[in-house]
């Protein structure tokens, strides 16, 4: 079909003289169409994406390059042998197809010949529609084949009528055939070969017999093999459509699934064997629910051998039976609720020593029970009879309780000692010395005495031997070697005949008591050391400190206070604070002291004056607090006194210096104001006539370096310039005035003055910043020639002036005279260029320094040049002259209403 269409397009090109023809489809996505056919065929590939060009006027050959550009894409132009001279774009009727004809190289005359029109209407339109449909179907088949090849399942479609079998890639791999199309005999041979390798050939043969029985049979069977794939599920279905009779075979490799199933069955057998070998009973219980879904019982689904032993029944008799029926105690014991809780929450139940009635043996026993959830309806249950363990633990607990009662009731140790050896000890010795009585019996008492106490011990034993009773503290070494304090009471032991026969010693441990005493002693020692350190710190403190009695007498003083007042400590201790205080400060201090004595305040701080021993006055800062007794009465005042005489004197000197600084600043401000007034005085006040000029100079507080001038240098030329020298203060103002004077003085020739770029170049040569204390300047200079209405100007980094004009009653237009070069004075080789601007009638030009718009409009933002331009444009539309309204608007924008830098403005108004 495409061949026919290409032939028709070739004849169309011959009939109309065009160089290329494309048919493309507008169907599909909105952003791209696709090519159906092209002539020459290699110009663009069929099916490639095509940009959706604009609408086409029917049947007209376009020669306007702009219109041609709207239908001939760049990508096609680059493939054409010559520049495109004409194009025709025609939508083919009753189809989403467009024909594009292109002429290259030479111009094209006339319109499309009638013969060509007929060819398009009678032949090409139909062929193109068919080609487009075929393209779509071809693409669909290719896509389908790609999908089939992508499947993991094998597919074979057998067409007996045509004797052909179509195989996808997976089927071809399994049958060891080439993918694509084979003869039915080849397919049958491959199936026989595959069957020969299968392990379950009998089953497969049965499947084959079913197929032979009827042509519409549907069969499936899993073929098993000794090696991978080990399991292939093979199914076959008859497929009938139209007059065709086909059969489809599906081969599904299920080896992985089958292997997993085999493994699962093996694991299940293993698990069953493990459970059966358990000593403890195990059961799997399934929940039984009523109509509302509530669990009302459990039935046994699996039990191991130990469980059968427990119930004294066979497995078959237990499975399927109700748990509540088998165990009548299930509900009362609370176990049923625990089963429910485990099933519903998944929380395992761990129950130890649970009493439970064993129905089979008609006895109540104790059990450890474990319950876990196996799935949503199953719980796993194991249990162990622990009755014997429980009873053993009970007995042990009871005997421990009795023993503890006895031991607790005998805290003191009593011992009978003969010939220096223990004969008998009470059981409580274990608590005191770490071993029971049997251990100590027969041992020598002196082995328990620390070496350093041996002499004391011997003396005590002698006293007892002499018939005395001994009391007091002693130390004994316990079985683990530690030394314990005990309170000892030893006396002679007399037999029934009254004969002394040993020593009875009673002792009780007092380690805690002794330790408490030692802690108290250590605390007392530390307090004494702290007191000593405090007294030393007070004595050696850098500031004066003293303890003052309520009557004003100084009780304790330190060295710093003696040095401050010029008295020794003994003399000071004879004086009162009132005697040391300057008369002028006494009343104020007394008021504070009275307030503390009355209990209204606890401390105060004041600056006051004292009198030194030699009579001079001392400025001091006094901080006073108090110590009160238990009844709240003041025992002593504690005063800390810092000599601040030097600080007070320094402050007085600083005040004098600050005053001088203020006077100096005021003088400087006066000088800056004078300089500003001078700069202002040398600048012109305005011009009238053919060009009306008005100007404003608003110096900042610190004085910037702005200066400007305008004057007619001859009848036809008006010179205007504005300078802004870098920095603030007198220096930049002097540089500005120097430039101004030089331009006024006539030291530049009239030829130079009439060429702004040469003026800038000359100033750049004379005012290099290394000779001007690092000051450079920006400058805009212009010369207006009235006879030609031409403004020739040059700009050395100054803000571009704005020209406002309008045509007739049209809107006001603002132009920035934007060209600029570098500032004057930075580089010796800076090149300045001149530009011209033809001044329209009634034009106004605004020239300004950067101080006019570099103003902070709040804490974070400054006015930008663009905003300044917008503001001036808006004002210029309604204000003429502009300057006073502009200054008012700028003042209103700044929070302080003042300019931070010099602000200079010149407005030129032309006839």
């Amino acid at each position: 079909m495409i061949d026919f269409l290409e032939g028709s397009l070739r004849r169309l090109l011959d009939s109309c003289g065009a160089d290329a023809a494309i048919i493309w489809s507008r169907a599909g996505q909105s952003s791209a169409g696709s090519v159906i056919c092209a002539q020459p065929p290699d110009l663009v590939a069929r099916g490639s994406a095509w940009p959706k060009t604009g609408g086409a006027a029917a049947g007209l050959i376009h020669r306007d390059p702009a219109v041609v550009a709207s239908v001939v894409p760049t990508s096609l132009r680059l493939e054409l042998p010559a520049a495109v001279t004409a194009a025709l774009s025609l939508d083919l009727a009753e189809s989403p197809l467009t024909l594009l004809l292109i002429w290259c190289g030479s111009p094209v005359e006339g319109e499309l010949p009638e013969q060509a029109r007929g060819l398009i209407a009678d032949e090409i339109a139909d062929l193109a529609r068919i080609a487009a449909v075929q393209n779509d179907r071809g693409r669909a088949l290719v896509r389908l084949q790609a999908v089939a090849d992508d499947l993991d399942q094998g597919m074979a479609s057998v067409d007996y009528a045509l004797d052909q079998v179509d195989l996808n890639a997976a089927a071809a791999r399994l049958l060891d055939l080439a993918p694509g199309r084979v003869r039915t005999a080849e397919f049958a041979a491959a199936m026989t070969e595959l069957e020969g390798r299968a392990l379950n050939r009998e089953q497969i043969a049965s499947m084959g017999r079913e197929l032979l029985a009827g042509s519409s049979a549907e069969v499936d069977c899993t073929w098993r093999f000794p090696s991978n794939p080990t399991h292939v599920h093979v199914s076959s279905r008859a497929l009938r459509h139209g007059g065709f009779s086909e059969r489809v075979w599906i081969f599904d490799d299920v080896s992985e699934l089958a292997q997993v199933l085999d493994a699962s069955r093996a694991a299940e057998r293993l698990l069953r064997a493990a459970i059966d070998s358990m000593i403890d009973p195990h059961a799997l219980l399934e929940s039984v629910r009523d109509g509302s879904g509530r669990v009302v019982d459990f039935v046994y689904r699996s039990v191991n051998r130990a469980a059968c032993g427990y119930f004294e029944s066979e497995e078959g008799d237990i499975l399927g039976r109700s748990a509540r029926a088998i165990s009548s105690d299930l509900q009362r014991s609370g176990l049923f609720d625990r089963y429910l809780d485990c099933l519903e929450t998944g929380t395992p139940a761990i129950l130890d020593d649970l009493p439970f009635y064993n129905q089979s043996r008609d006895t109540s026993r104790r059990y450890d029970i474990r319950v876990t959830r196996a799935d949503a309806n199953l719980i796993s249950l194991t249990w162990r009879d622990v009755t014997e363990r429980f009873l053993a633990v009970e007995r042990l607990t009871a005997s421990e309780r009795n023993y503890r009662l006895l031991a607790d009731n005998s805290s003191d140790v009593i011992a009978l000692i003969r010939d220096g050896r223990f004969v008998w000890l009470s059981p409580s010795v274990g608590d005191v010395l770490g071993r029971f009585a049997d251990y100590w019996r027969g041992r020598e008492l002196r082995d328990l005495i620390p070496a350093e106490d041996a002499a004391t011990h011997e003396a005590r034993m002698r006293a007892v031997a002499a018939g005395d009773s001994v009391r007091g503290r002693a130390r004994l070494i316990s079985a683990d070697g530690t030394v314990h304090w005990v309170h000892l009471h030893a006396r002679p032991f007399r037999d029934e005949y009254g004969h002394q026969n040993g020593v009875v010693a009673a002792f009780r441990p007092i380690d805690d008591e002794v330790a408490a005493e030692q802690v108290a002693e250590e605390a007392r020692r530390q307090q004494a050391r702290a007191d000593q350190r405090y007294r030393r710190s007070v004595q050696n403190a850098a500031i004066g400190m003293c303890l003052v009695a309520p009557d004003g007498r100084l009780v304790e003083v330190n060295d710093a206070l003696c040095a401050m007042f010029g008295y020794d400590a003994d003399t000071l201790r004879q004086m009162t604070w009132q005697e040391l205080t300057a008369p002028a400060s006494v009343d104020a201090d007394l008021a504070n002291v009275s307030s503390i004595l009355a209990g209204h305040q606890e401390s105060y701080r004041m600056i006051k004056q004292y009198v030194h021993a030699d009579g001079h006055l001392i400025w001091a800062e006094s901080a006073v607090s108090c110590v009160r007794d238990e009844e709240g009465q003041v025992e002593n005042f504690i005063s800390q006194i810092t000599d601040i005489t030097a600080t007070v004197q320094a402050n007085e000197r600083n005040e004098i210096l600050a005053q001088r600084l203020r006077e100096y600043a005021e003088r400087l401000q006066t000088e800056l104001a004078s300089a500003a007034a001078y700069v202002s005085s040398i600048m012109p006040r305005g011009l009238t006539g053919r060009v009306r000029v008005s100007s404003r100079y608003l110096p900042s507080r610190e004085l910037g370096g702005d200066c400007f001038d305008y004057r007619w240098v001859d009848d036809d030329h008006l010179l205007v310039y504005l300078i802004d020298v870098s920095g603030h203060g007198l220096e930049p103002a002097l540089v500005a005035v120097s430039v101004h004077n030089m331009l006024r003085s006539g030291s530049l020739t009239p030829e130079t003055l009439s060429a702004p770029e040469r003026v800038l170049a000359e100033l750049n040569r004379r005012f290099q910043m290394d000779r001007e204390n690092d000051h450079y300047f920006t400058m805009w200079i212009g010369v207006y020639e009235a006879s030609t209405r031409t403004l020739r100007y040059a700009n050395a980094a100054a803000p571009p002036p704005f020209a406002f004009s309008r045509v007739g009653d049209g809107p006001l237009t603002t132009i920035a005279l934007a060209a600029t070069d570098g500032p004057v004075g930075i580089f010796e080789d800076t090149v300045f260029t001149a530009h011209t601007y033809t001044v329209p009638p009634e034009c106004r030009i605004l020239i300004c320094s950067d101080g006019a718009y570099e103003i902070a409009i709040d804490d974070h933002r400054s006015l930008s040049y663009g905003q300044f331009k917008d503001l001036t444009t808006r004002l210029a539309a309604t204000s003429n002259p502009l300057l006073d309204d502009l200054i008012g608007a700028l003042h209103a924008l700044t929070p302080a209403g003042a300019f931070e830098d010099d602000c200079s403005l010149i407005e030129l108004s032309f006839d």
Partner: protein
Amino acid sequence: MFGHGLGGSPSDWAPLVEAFGFGRQVLTFAQSGSAEADPSLFSARRHSSVLGFADDLGLLCGELGVRDAIFIGHSMGGSAGALAAAGDPGLFSKLVLINTSPCYVDDPDHGYRGGFSHADVDALLDAIVRDYDAWTGGFGPLVMSNPHRPEYGMDFVRALRALDPSYAAVSFRAAFTGDFRKIYPRIGNPTLLLQSRDDPAVPVDVMYWMAKAIPSADMVELQSRGHFPHVVDPGEVIRAAGAFVASPPGGRR
């Protein structure tokens, strides 16, 4: 007429529009697949090549009746403009191509250094497809350079993340895998080439190659750094192109 590059936007041109727009009719537009463009205009098939973007440009001019325009394009936007000019010489009167490249891949056999090996490009495109957000986080600041002004990098990252990732993958593949060196000698328009320093996407050698390939081309090496000189220092671009843009249509620069 201003054509932005990948990840760019019509607003990138604001300073240049203000500087060059006086007395002229200015046309800015959003490239297909960019955040501000109509998504239905993007075709993964057509825009798999820079030629698709060149087609858009030519057809847009055709529909608007624009001829003899001054075209200023950046990166892939510049490349699309160059191809459109080669196909239709009357479309533009002159071209300003900023950090533009006809081919990003090195071709040592012909002494051409595009800045990337085939492996570099494969790795870059793979990173785009694998995790677009992660890739933009690294690529944005790298291409924008100017580490002392990180806000430019962050802005570019935001701009890239505003793109549909599937469109971005197609567009970046188009830009980085195309080779249009055979077409550049067919550009008959006066052309000014601008190239900034330390551009990780386009080495300055590419500009030297283009200056030789395009019959009527001049070039300026800019002082600003990174791939976006018109964003980080529009003043320098305006100064460099000012005289060329202002010169009479028929004359040389």
